[in-house]
């Protein structure tokens, strides 16, 4: 549970910072918001040491020997994070400017065919909210199992700008898994994140040369609700263009022997590692991730 102690789930920017971007987006368009970003990214690179250290800790691992002049890479990482936040705002505002190609469409259709739901597991890569909006196109209710950590005031600012988002199940509540199970049995799509341990049953696996603790409760849910699990990521390709890429599918009828959850988690983290090597500035777990 060490990971849980380190991660504070605190949003960057505060109420006024977020409000500033929302106003820019609303009245001056996305380019104005993008134009402000390099200054904000530079500020975070120079003055915010805790996120700097967390970013550098990840970048050292992903860059390997090419990790010269770390502040430059941290700046690129912060910039990429800012772009993703702005893109999230543009997408959920319903402007239609951002396009998302779904490479998981066939897998999803096949998994949903028998009327059962599906568990979608995403990492903190690219923009998850874009993936969630895309999932609404399958004619099923979409629910998100997670912990609400957004500051109440920041949430109000963002909600004032965005159209209604998906329904959330509070992972911190006693019966979160019970609600999730009921949703899956009804045929809903249940989304959760797989690369951040929040105190659930977990497995320790190798990831980017270190040991990472990852949640495994999705395996229990999938087994009991008899539904597939799809690991995927919503990656930014270029300006206004995202794609949802599949990482791994766990079928409901797969034989589940002892250590199944840990082995699968280890496999999917290898897939994630490959994805991150191609998109190294798109992983947004800004806390000290490894032991």
């Amino acid at each position, binding site marked *: 549970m060490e990971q849980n102690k380190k991660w504070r789930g605190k949003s960057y920017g505060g109420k006024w910072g977020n409000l500033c971007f929302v106003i820019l987006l609303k009245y001056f368009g996305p380019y104005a918001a993008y134009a402000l970003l390099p200054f904000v990214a530079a500020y975070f690179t120079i003055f915010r040491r805790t996120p700097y250290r967390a970013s550098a800790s990840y970048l050292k691992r992903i860059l390997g020997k090419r990790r010269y002049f770390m502040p430059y890479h941290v700046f690129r990482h912060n910039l990429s994070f800012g772009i993703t936040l702005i893109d999230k705002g543009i997408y959920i505002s319903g402007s239609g400017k951002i396009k998302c190609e779904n490479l998981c469409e066939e897998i999803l259709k096949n998994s949903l065919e028998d009327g059962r739901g599906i568990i979608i597991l995403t990492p903190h890569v690219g923009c998850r909210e874009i993936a969630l909006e895309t999932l609404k196109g399958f004619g099923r209710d979409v629910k998100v199992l997670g912990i609400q950590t957004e500051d109440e005031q920041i949430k109000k600012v963002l909600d004032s700008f965005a159209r209604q988002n998906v329904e959330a199940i509070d992972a911190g509540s006693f019966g979160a898994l019970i609600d999730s*199970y009921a949703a899956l049995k009804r045929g809903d799509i249940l989304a959760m994140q797989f690369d951040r341990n929040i105190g659930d049953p977990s497995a320790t696996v190798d990831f980017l040369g270190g040991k990472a603790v990852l949640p495994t409760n999705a395996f229990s849910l999938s087994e009991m609700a008899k539904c597939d699990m799809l690991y995927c990521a919503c990656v930014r390709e270029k300006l206004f263009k995202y794609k949802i890429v599949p990482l791994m599918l766990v079928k409901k009828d797969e034989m589940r022997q002892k250590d199944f959850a840990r082995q699968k988690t280890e496999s999917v983290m290898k897939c994630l590692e490959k994805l991150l090597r191609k998109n190294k500035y798109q992983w947004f777990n800004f806390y000290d991730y490894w032991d």
Partner: protein
Amino acid sequence: MKDNLTEDIKNKIISALNLQGVSAADISDTTPLFGDDGLGLDSVDALELVVMLEKEYSINVSEQSIAKEIFSTPASIAEYVRKNSK
């Protein structure tokens, strides 16, 4: 006199959760199932209990708002089963 349904439920809890070295006699009717002062079950165990009620008694518990109350002790589960058995 022992309540048969509560005893049955205790045995099914032990079996569903695969509780090693625990027998029905070790659990009283009012032993809290969750929390440090009881059996210390967790959220995945709660889900196992939901599935157990579905399989063994054809009873659905689909709302977490009532789940905490239902699964607080073996006696509370028995009471819920009695009320909802078809």
